[in-house]
């Protein structure tokens, strides 16, 4: 096999941080290489150097035998390297064809080459098995379809090496499986692929070879067939990480009860009850009403029908602030957009929800000393690394940001906790920490509503599980009875038939 891509001795520093330390890597023709590592291990930096977004401090990049000039994305594109970013770079108001053509046409020309471009796009789409409607508007496409457009965009520019940065971060399990099947077919057309991931199961399922990065260094390379998920996990984390297990205990009285709740156009006649010391898992494919359910129990909007009760009181009419005061904790789905204000320091985010409480303000003035001390306590207790109270929150890694949000919520011993996708995008070490905190809150008697797209997470944490499909909820099943097949059917909306069986 010949190497189509070679990185040798890549080193990149950001101030005091060495993001890549003498990393070497090669990719063979027709191979799928997984680049595995925790958040902050330097995966994305390495790929950005390869693609020319960053210039390395040392080392070089060779594509098909040619050394690429550093820091020039255009040179990488011309050499046949295509990148599919984790966060899509598509213009939502334009059509698929427009997006694919964008940037590959000369600015000054008399006629647009649309018909030629359309023919080329359809040809590629057919050859690589990526069906697409060239005239569809991006804003109307699902996340999976948008990703397909991103891949087509790279192929349209004649990419022969494709880099995918966390391609499944935004996809549900079936979509992810479809993606990997497609990628496999693409290698038979002569493409070579690198995908970045921190999910062990997909690395094991989809790659030929695995390169493991830890702390900026290349720590191991393995043939996928000759390794195991356990070995990779240890290589990635540097120690063995075990997700904590739920222990059986008695559950108490109902805390949050929804009966026949609807939110116009989003939730349809749902009912559930979460009890003291219980975790109720809501599983489902993304976009089936989880966002509306999250907003409903976060106090961001009330039901249009049915009743939602917290303890003895009506919950549906409470504002976010009233809900917090009533002892509810909310871990939002998107920590950057809803969880924290990135520009503000850690201490302000630590008290943001309770600024008006007596503990943190007096006469309209913020008790800065008390707030800072509180934040320092959270940093200590929840092991928020790399932070002091005055650190700008946006600088924290995803896992540490999530620990801050958890800490802010759990410090006041809430009786109800909404945990909406609490480990999305986190690495193994952080996932274990978040799970341990949620289980500790459960042991302390909190009622927890867990909304998750990760089946392992739901099965591992929840006492009972309900599936959400098109805004409707299945009846609950006890976690012990929830095998993969049954959950799969539930998530496909076929719970009536399983109940009958």
């Amino acid at each position, binding site marked *: 096999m010949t190497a189509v891509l070679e990185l040798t001795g890549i080193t990149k520093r*950001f*101030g005091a941080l060495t993001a890549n330390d003498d990393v070497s890597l090669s990719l063979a023709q027709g191979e799928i290489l997984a680049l595995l590592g925790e958040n902050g291990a330097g995966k994305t930096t390495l790929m950005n150097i390869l693609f020319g*977004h*960053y*210039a390395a401090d040392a080392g070089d990049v060779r594509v098909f035998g040619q050394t690429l000039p550093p*820091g020039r994305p255009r040179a990488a594109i011309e050499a046949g390297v295509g990148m599919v970013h984790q966060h899509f770079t598509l213009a939502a108001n334009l059509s698929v064809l427009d997006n694919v053509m964008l940037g590959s046409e000369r600015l000054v020309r008399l006629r647009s080459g649309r018909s030629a471009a359309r023919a080329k796009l359809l040809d590629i789409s057919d050859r690589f098995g990526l069906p697409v409607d060239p005239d569809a508007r991006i804003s109307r496409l699902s996340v999976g379809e948008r990703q397909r457009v991103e891949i087509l965009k790279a192929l349209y520019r004649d990419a022969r090496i494709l880099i995918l940065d966390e391609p499944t971060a935004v996809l549900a399990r079936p979509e992810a499986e479809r993606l990997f099947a497609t990628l496999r077919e693409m290698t038979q057309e002569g493409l070579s692929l690198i995908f970045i991931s921190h999910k062990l199961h997909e690395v094991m399922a989809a790659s030929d070879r695995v390169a493991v990065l830890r702390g900026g260094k290349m720590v191991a390379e393995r043939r996928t067939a000759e390794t195991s998920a356990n070995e990779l996990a240890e290589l990635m984390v540097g120690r063995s990480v075990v997700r904590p297990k739920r222990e059986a205990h008695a559950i108490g009285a109902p805390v949050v009860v929804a009966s026949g709740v609807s939110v116009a156009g989003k939730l349809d006649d749902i009912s559930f009850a979460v009890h003291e010391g219980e975790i109720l898992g809501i599983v489902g494919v993304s976009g089936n009403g989880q966002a509306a359910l999250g907003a409903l129990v*976060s*106090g*961001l909007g009330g039901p249009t029908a049915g009743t939602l009760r917290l303890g003895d009181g009506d919950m549906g009419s409470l*504002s*976010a*602030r009233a*809900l*917090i005061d009533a002892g509810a904790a*909310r871990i*939002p789905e998107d920590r950057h*957009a*809803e*969880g*924290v*204000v*990135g*520009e*503000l320091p850690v201490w*302000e985010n630590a008290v*943001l*929800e309770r*600024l*008006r409480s007596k503990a943190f*303000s007096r006469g*309209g*003035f*913020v008790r*800065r000393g008390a707030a800072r001390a509180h934040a320092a306590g959270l940093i200590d207790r929840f092991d928020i690394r790399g932070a002091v109270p005055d650190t*700008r929150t946006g*600088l924290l890694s995803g896992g540490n940001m999530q620990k801050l949000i958890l800490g802010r919520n759990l410090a006041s011993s809430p009786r109800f906790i909404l945990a909406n996708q609490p480990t999305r995008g986190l690495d193994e070490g952080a996932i274990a920490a978040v799970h341990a905190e949620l289980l500790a809150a459960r042991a302390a008697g909190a009622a927890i509503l867990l909304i998750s797209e990760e089946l392992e997470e739901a099965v591992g944490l929840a006492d009972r599980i309900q599936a959400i499909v098109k805004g409707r909820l299945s009846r609950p099943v006890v976690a012990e009875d929830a095998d993969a097949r049954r959950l799969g059917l539930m998530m496909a909306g076929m719970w009536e038939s399983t109940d009958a069986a």
Partner: protein
Amino acid sequence: MRLERRAHVPLGLVVAAPVAAIVAALALAAGLIAAAGVNPLTAYGEMLRGALGSRLAITEMLTRATPLILTGLAAAVAFRARLWNIGGEGQFYMGALITAWAGHSLGLPGPLGIAVLMVLGMAAGAVMLAGPAFLRLRFGVDEVVTTLLLNFIVILFVGLMIEGPLRDPLAFGWPSSVPVDGDYRLPDLVPRTRLHIGLLFAIAAAGAVWLVLARTVFGAEARAAGFNPRAASFAGISLPRTLMGVALLSGGLAGLAGAVEVMGVTASVTTTMSPGFGYAGIVVAMLAALHPAGVVAAAVFVATVFVGADAMSRATGVPSFIADVIVALSLLTMLVALLFTTYRVRQ
């Protein structure tokens, strides 16, 4: 060349940025002055002498800085919460107009009357911004457009009032409002100059604004709402209440500028009483990096340019419009400087 966000912005850089921006703006304007056939160093020397060269010059400069501090604070308060108030000019005029109108017929003793007039001026400015803020909250109407266009409406309205109901019959046909009662003129700070105690009010306002923004719950909520409205809202902060509070404070400060200018300097309202105090307030706020203490310093700089440019124009023949050019350029150079304080340039 690429930009990387700085993890920490050193204080030295925060202070150096506006200084560098001003130097760059002066250097760019020097080209225009040279094109007008005058040695830029001579011209800038005249400008400095005209603004700072004598006791009278300094008091004139400070008189000019007083409304600029207040309109600068108005812009800084709003911009911090990401409320783009471009309507400082209109709010200034409404504050001035209501002060002149009420100050002509108010039957209260001096100091109390002055206090009441200041409150009225603030209320008028606050109302002017409350409208656009409501439209943004309720219908998502862009406040840049509404506040900017309201400026022209307000100036035409002021013209209507001083040609009509508020016309001063003793002004010999000159379009000017009736003057405020002598009891309500602000006392001089320096005898036999135009400098009045409004300067002290403006500086006190800067201190109060700092206190509110940096130390109160309202200030913290306004900052959070400005940076990330979704997260603020999720955390239980009421966006409409916060934004409306910011709008009332910002509009109130610009209205206060108008009230103080009428009571301290002009006594009556004309449509030419403001050489763009509202717009210059935006520059002042940006040069100050939206910090209240910086607003005072930046207002002094802008006032120096405006007052100095008149003297320079008399001495060298360079049109005094160069002042507008320098102030506008310093806004542009400050935006560039802010980029370099937030980001680090890397190879």
